[in-house]
Each structure stands twice: as structure tokens, then as C-alpha cells.
């Protein structure tokens, strides 16, 4: 760190203050990241390594990395006698080999991939729907004089204040009547209704920032209102729409309470599934860690991409910068 100050200001923190602040922040950041690093490390340990005392930290030095956790995540296995195993053809693939060493045979694929696919489909479906409806509504609220506008906007926000369990009771009954219980469509509609408040509030903020003069100019030139919306406003709002979409997607991806109460089989997403991954004799922590790692990676990537818009997203557009 060089001490040169080109534009000197009396309110610029001193070099020492900066250093102390930097050290404390780095310390906190390292502390806060440990659980995440531990998830990734556990996913490449063997079950005995994962529960050893003292903990094994550095791969190749303290423990030998293995893909066993990922194998256990993706497969179900059953225990067989050595005599029976001897009669089998040689193992095909790494996972089979690892299983054979423990007198196990791979029986079938686990449910992780279908659950993951459910998460993807439901997240994308509800995001697309919420952003589509939200963009229209946000434009309506931003540009037109709507009666009771503030009340409607507040009504849209207030739907977020309900505890999810409270919402789940009637939704459970309603979906049972409509046959939407444990279906992807039901979850998409539910997540859309939760996400739409975020989408409307965020997008209204983004559209408010686009000067009305652009559309008015286009309309003077003969565009209809809808044409002006499509060809002038939408391209201008593209960044905002993308940011909103990612926030909606993250919510749907992370959601647990509705998923655990309203889905149990066909439409179950990954969050309620990962905690119930069990191996022989209790939780199979490397497999849980492997499932968690794969589940978290997309969000980590999105967070890094979205860091400039994070503030706006988490405060429903109340704080802009």
C-alpha cells in the first residue's frame, strides 16, 4: 500500500486507520467464509475423514481427496456378501469401484438429480412469470395515474409479511382441491405470487429512472403506447429486468418452508431433499456436503455477478445507489 495522496482531503481516513480497518475486515471475512470452505472440503472427504478428530483440513496433506461423497450423492447402494460380489463382473466406473471396496453394489441412481431439476424448472418458471407480470405492472404503476396507487403498491408488498407457514395452510387445502399438490405448476404459481412483490417494487424503481420523454418522443413520431413500451422502455430497462430476474431466481432457488410443506415427491426441490440424505448409520456428511456444494455454486456465481445491484435487490428497491 503506497502512501501517496493525489487529491488530499481532510476527511480522508489516515493510512493507519485504513490499515486497521482492512485487517479487521479481512479477519471477519476469513472467519465468515470458513463454514463455506468447510462444506466444499467435506464434499471431497471420505466419511471417516469427514468426522475425524482433530479435523483434517488440507487436501493431499491431511487427507486424500475422493469423489466418494459425490458418488454417494448420486447413487443408492446396497450391502452384499463378498461371495456374491465375487460373482459379479468387474466394476464399471469409479463410483462402482469405490462401492465394491466396501462390499457394496450400486443399485440405482439417487433422487438428487430429479430434485435438482425440479429446483431449476420451478426457479426458471416462477422467475419468468414473475418478471413478465412484474414488468407490465411496474410500467403501469410508473407511468399511469392509477387510482389508489400507493395502497395497491403497499398491498403488493404486504403479501410478503405473511409467515410462510400461515400461507401454506390454505394453499395446502386449495391445491388439494385443484390437484396442484406436489406439482411443479403449483410451486411455480406459488413462488410467482411471492416473487411478484419483489419484481414490481424493483422494476418500478428501474422504470421510474427512465425519462418519460423517450417514450413521449417515440409516440409523437407515431408509436402507439404499447410499441413505445416494447421498443423504447424495455431495451432501456434490460439491466434492471435482468437484475430483478436474478433476485427472483435466488429466492425461488433458496426457498424451503413452502417446499417442505407442499412437496414430498414429484415436485420436491433440492432444499428439503438435501437435509434428508442419509447413508448407512446416520447422515452421510460428505454426500450432504457434495449436494450442498453443487446447490450453492450457482448462487455464489450470481452473487459475484450481481454485487453492484445487491443493495437494491435486498431492500425491495428502497435503497438505490
Amino acid at each position, binding site marked *: 500500500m503506497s502512501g501517496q495522496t493525489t487529491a488530499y482531503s481532510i476527511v480522508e481516513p489516515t493510512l493507519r486507520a485504513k490499515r486497521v480497518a482492512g485487517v479487521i475486515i479481512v479477519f471477519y471475512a476469513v472467519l465468515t467464509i470458513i463454514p463455506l470452505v468447510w462444506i466444499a472440503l467435506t464434499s471431497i472427504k471420505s466419511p471417516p475423514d469427514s468426522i475425524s478428530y482433530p479435523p483434517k483440513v488440507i487436501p493431499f496433506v491431511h487427507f486424500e481427496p475422493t469423489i466418494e461423497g459425490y458418488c454417494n450423492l448420486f447413487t443408492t447402494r446396497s450391502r452384499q456378501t463378498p461371495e456374491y460380489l465375487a460373482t459379479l463382473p468387474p466394476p464399471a466406473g469409479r463410483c462402482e469401484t469405490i462401492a465394491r471396496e466396501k462390499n457394496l453394489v450400486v443399485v440405482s441412481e439417487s433422487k438428487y438429480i430429479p430434485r435438482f431439476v425440479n429446483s431449476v424448472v420451478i426457479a426458471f418458471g416462477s422467475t419468468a412469470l414473475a418478471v413478465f407480470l412484474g414488468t407490465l405492472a411496474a410500467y403501469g404503476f410508473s407511468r399511469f395515474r392509477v387510482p389508489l396507487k400507493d395502497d395497491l403498491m403497499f398491498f*403488493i408488498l404486504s403479501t*410478503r409479511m405473511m409467515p410462510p407457514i400461515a400461507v401454506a395452510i390454505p394453499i395446502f387445502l386449495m391445491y388439494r382441491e385443484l390437484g396442484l399438490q406436489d406439482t411443479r405448476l403449483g410451486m411455480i404459481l406459488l413462488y410467482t405470487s411471492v416473487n411478484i412483490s419483489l419484481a414490481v417494487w424493483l422494476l418500478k424503481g428501474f422504470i421510474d429512472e427512465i425519462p418519460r420523454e423517450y417514450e413521449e418522443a417515440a409516440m409523437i413520431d407515431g408509436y402507439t403506447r404499447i410499441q413505445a413500451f416494447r421498443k423504447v422502455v424495455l431495451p432501456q430497462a434490460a439491466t434492471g429486468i435482468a437484475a430483478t430476474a436474478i433476485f427472483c431466481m*435466488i429466492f425461488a432457488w433458496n426457498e424451503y418452508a413452502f417446499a417442505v410443506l407442499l412437496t414430498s415427491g414429484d415436485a420436491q426441490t433440492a432444499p428439503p431433499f438435501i437435509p434428508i440424505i442419509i447413508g448407512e448409520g446416520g447422515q452421510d456428511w460428505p454426500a450432504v456436503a457434495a449436494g450442498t456444494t453443487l446447490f450453492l455454486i450457482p448462487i455464489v456465481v450470481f452473487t459475484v455477478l450481481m454485487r453492484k445491484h445487491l443493495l437494491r435487490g435486498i431492500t425491495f428497491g428502497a435503497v438505490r445507489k
Partner: protein
Amino acid sequence: MTLPTSRRLIEKAAVATPPALSGRIRGLSDRAIAWLFISPTIILLLAINIFPLIWTIWLSFTNYRANRPNAPLRDVGLAHYIDILTNPDIWAAMQVTARFVIATIAIQTVLGFLLAWLIDRKFRGAGFWTTVILLPMMLSPAVVGNFWTFLYQPQIGLFNYMVAFVSGIPPSSFQMLGDVKLSPWAIVLVDSWMWTPYVMLICLAGLRSIPDYIYEAAEVDRASKWRQFWTITLPMALPFIMLAVLFRGIENFKMFDMVNLLTGGGPGSTTEVASITLKREAFEKWRTGYSSAFAIILFVTVFGLANIYVKALNAVKAR
């Protein structure tokens, strides 16, 4: 958004439209478009939020049980509400919730503001480390919370090992999740680990919204740093801090996923927050009518508290 691109867009728009259209049909009226655009959202919310809410209110006056849909339905009037408001177990759950909300908000506000203030010292690499600190809050509380049960294992867990390493007490001598005294704090710790960055980010926006010239003026007037902090920094960042507290308060009042996975309300009922009680009544005991009444009480509580708080927030902002 840059002006040149927008101008180009307008030019493109101006060229692309046939002049014959101008002045003729304008398509739908603005009023029609406004309703066309807004009504799908309202209809969806009415169908999936308001209709169920009304249904919940209706159920709360009946003895309906979702696992016996064909049992005769009886109108019980306000019996459920009276029962809930006089039930010591419900009050215990509300107290656990209140303690949880207060503890997490206190920790996260103080720590979050402190971190934001440190980041605002603008040291090199602040941007990168801020992103690192922000990571936990974007992740699924359920999936990550579940992994904390592993970190909290008495003998093999990393958390116990690290505490033992620092303090010297044996790592198997305390159980974060199994101990009546420690388990509430285990949850507060995970919640704070996840959500302190949230408060930090909002506080950081507040600190950055304070213009430099105010500090320069204070510096010219020879106000001490300490005094500058109490008379400039804190009052000007207060609306932001209050906003963060509002969002955290509402979220933690609804808290379900992390508690459900970490302790499930236990040991005993020491960590049984309101949402857990509600889940037990509604989806384990299947007392649908009773739990509907509890759901309505919870909603009215959070809605009422939030409204009072927003009034206070606006008063602070208007100052």
C-alpha cells in the same frame, strides 16, 4: 444508461414508424393499458394470497381438520382465538420469538454497522472482501443451516473444535444444539453469520450517502472525531439502520427454515419460535381451524408492528 444510446434509440424509433400512423389510431387508451398491465398481477395475488387469506379467516372460526375433510364442520366462533390468547404454550413461543428477534437484531445491527464503518475507511481491496462477507446472505438458509448441524457436533464438529482450540475447554464438553442454555444462541449465531452482511450493506449505503463537505465543515469547526460520529454519522445513517432493522425484524419474526433444521424447536421447546408451533399445530396435529386462528394472530401482529415502525421510520426521515 448513457444518453447517446438513448438518443440513438429515439432516432431509430423516429425512422422506423410509418408517418401515416402518427395522429391516427393511438391503440388502446392509457387507462385501458394501465389496467391491462396491472390487473394480471392483482388477479394472481388475489388468487394465491388474498383468497387463501380469507379462507384462513373463515377456517379459524371452525373446527376443520385437514386430515379429516369429511368430518362434520362446526362453527366454534371465537373459541380458537380465546384459546390461543390464553394458552401459556403459545405465549412461551411468542416469547421465544421475541427474544430471538431482539437478540439477532441487536447483534446484527451493532456488528453490521461496525463492519460498514470499517469498510467505509476505503482501504485497498475493500470491494473484494465486501463481496466475500456478503456471500452467506445469498445462500439458502435451509441448506446452509442444515450444514451447521454438522459444524455443531460435539466431538467432530468444526465449531466445537475451534472454540475448544481458542478457549482450551474440551470440544466434547458442550453441545450447542442439545443444551437448553446454548441452543437459542446456536441459532442466533447462525442467523447472525448469515444476515449481519445484510445490515452491513444497508448501513454502508447510509454511510456513503453522507456528503464529504459536512465532515469538512465539522473539521473546520474543530469538532472531534468522536463528536462527528455522534452528531453527523449516526443521525444521518439512522434511517438506513432503521430500514435494515425493519426488514430483519419482519424476516426473523417469520423465521422457520433455520430453526426447523437446526433444532426443530428443541431441546424441549426452548427454541420453539412461533412458526414452529404453527407448523406443529397445522401439519402434525392437523388442527387446521386452530392453526388458522394462530396464523391470523401472527399476521396481524407482524403487520401491526411493521406499520407502527414505518411511521417511526418516516418521522426520523422527515427530521
